[in-house]
């Protein structure tokens, strides 16, 4: 069935699942620091049929990797649906629009619009950060390209890219009271779905979703709760102290410390699955985005334990 008949914006698998009211489950894959296609395909096999769409990160943490669109296309070739991440740090509005056209032409249907980590974090700390437009403006630009068939500069686009537009939201960054407002701005800009920052502080997240529900925002946008299982106590401590905008309560670290060595990773997965269980019934949450960072091979196991399999197969 065509996009129009179904009143779909992009016709992507992710859009169809969300629109049908089913609980979405998305994954993530970091492109390689080289040209090895095999590495991408091997990681992809763990995600295939276990998630609805796979985020392909874009030079994450400002470290150079294979282009996000290229790795996305490798997934398309393998029969997976990518969620093409694009950051504002590395390209100006011309390059962005050109990449969006090319990505769509070759089969990419979902995009995640992000500001991008500052270059200072990465392997080229003195690189010039572009930030010609910001993530809010990127959302609005993709929407304009899709719905108005116009480039940001105003010229017509022949065969506009029908992209399902995603963005991030961090419910834990300060000031807390502004987080829902910023979400509202992203909705106004035209976002279709949100993937949140990794959630560990459930109490705070419940509060965030509660306010978003009260303001009617969760009826205007699909929200996928971000989940990253802890592999180790070291990782939890690192996320707590070193990753900006991350909120890791001490109880979780204590919980991991409470199990015998060798069982910490399983405990991390248990916690993640308990979270997923709660998200399934949480009003205003429409799915989970599982970021198993460099742990793709664990996704089948986590998906099974979280009882999100088999994944729906929309037409």
């Amino acid at each position, binding site marked *: 069935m065509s996009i129009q008949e179904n009143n779909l914006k992009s016709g992507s698998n992710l859009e169809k699942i969300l629109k049908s009211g089913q609980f979405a489950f998305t994954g993530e894959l970091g492109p390689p620091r080289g040209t090895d296609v095999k590495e991408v395909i091997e990681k992809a096999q763990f995600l295939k049929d276990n998630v609805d769409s796979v985020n392909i990160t874009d030079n994450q943490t400002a470290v150079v990797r294979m282009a996000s669109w290229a790795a996305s296309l490798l997934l398309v070739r393998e029969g997976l649906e990518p969620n093409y991440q694009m950051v*504002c*740090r590395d390209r100006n*509005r011309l390059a962005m629009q050109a990449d969006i056209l090319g990505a769509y032409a070759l089969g990419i249907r979902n995009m995640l619009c992000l*500001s*991008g*980590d*500052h270059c*200072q*974090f990465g392997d080229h700390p003195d690189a010039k*950060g572009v*930030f*010609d*437009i*910001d*993530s*809010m*403006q990127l959302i*609005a*630009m993709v929407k304009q390209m899709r719905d108005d068939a116009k480039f*940001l500069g105003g010229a017509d686009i022949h065969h506009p890219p029908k992209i399902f537009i995603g963005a*991030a*939201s*961090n419910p834990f*960054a*300060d*000031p807390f009271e*502004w987080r829902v*407002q*910023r979400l*509202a*701005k992203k909705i*106004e*800009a035209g976002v279709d779905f949100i993937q949140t*920052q990794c959630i560990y502080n459930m109490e705070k997240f419940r509060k965030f979703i509660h306010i978003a529900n009260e303001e009617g925002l969760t009826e205007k946008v699909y929200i996928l709760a971000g989940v990253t299982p802890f592999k180790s106590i070291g990782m939890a401590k690192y996320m707590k102290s070193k990753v*900006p*905008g991350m909120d890791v309560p001490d109880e979780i670290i204590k919980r991991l410390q409470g199990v015998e060595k060798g069982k910490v990773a399983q405990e991390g997965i248990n916690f993640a699955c308990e979270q997923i269980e709660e998200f399934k019934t949480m009003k205003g949450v429409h799915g989970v985005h599982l970021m198993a960072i460099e742990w793709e091979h664990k996704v089948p196991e986590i998906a099974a334990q979280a009882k999100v399999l088999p994944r729906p197969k929309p037409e």
Partner: protein
Amino acid sequence: MIVAKRKPFEEIKEMLKGYKKVLNVGCGTCVSVCLAGGEKEVAILNAELDMARRLEDDPIEIHGQTIERQCDREYLAELDDMIKKENFDALLSMACGVGIQFLAERFPEIPTFPGVDTTGLAVNQAVGWYEERCRSCSQCVLGITGGICPITMCAKGLLNGPCGGTNKGSCEISADQPCAWFKIHERLSAQGRLDSIRKINLARGWKDQIPRNLIQPGYKKPEKVS
């Protein structure tokens, strides 16, 4: 004001290698106030250069002259006679990038070198401490951002912050760098003006991508400049 930092001594020495008679021109305005390129700094640098070149058995005759402003023709003209008479084989300027270029333009036949790195438009937070506040972007948004510039103070120059990297009031790049958007929110909230950032700041055309010319209303470019 415009602030600058003196270039590393080795870099200056290397630029002046081979030149025997040099005039170091200080600037009496911004770089003087920010302790980088005024009369005092000219004298210090000249003493250092003189000593270093002597030690290398390659003496340099280095003169110093500080004028009121190197970005103004009227003051640069004060150097005309001296430069004509003395036959300097190089000029060193301790003005900001604007002054250095204007000096080089006035004496195009003499190689002119920078003695400082210009670092921005800054406020004087305390003696010797200057904080950048403006990128002279040509389209001021301070009216909607509570008087705090996101172009300058946000490490990503975001117009719709704060991003997810804001970290307990600090920027993701450093705990010492306040998050501009956190501050903007704080100030507007206290003023009861949060509405001013609820609207999306749309993508803007950057006005600083070509050399800018400013002609104030009522004025025009003269046909010939002196």
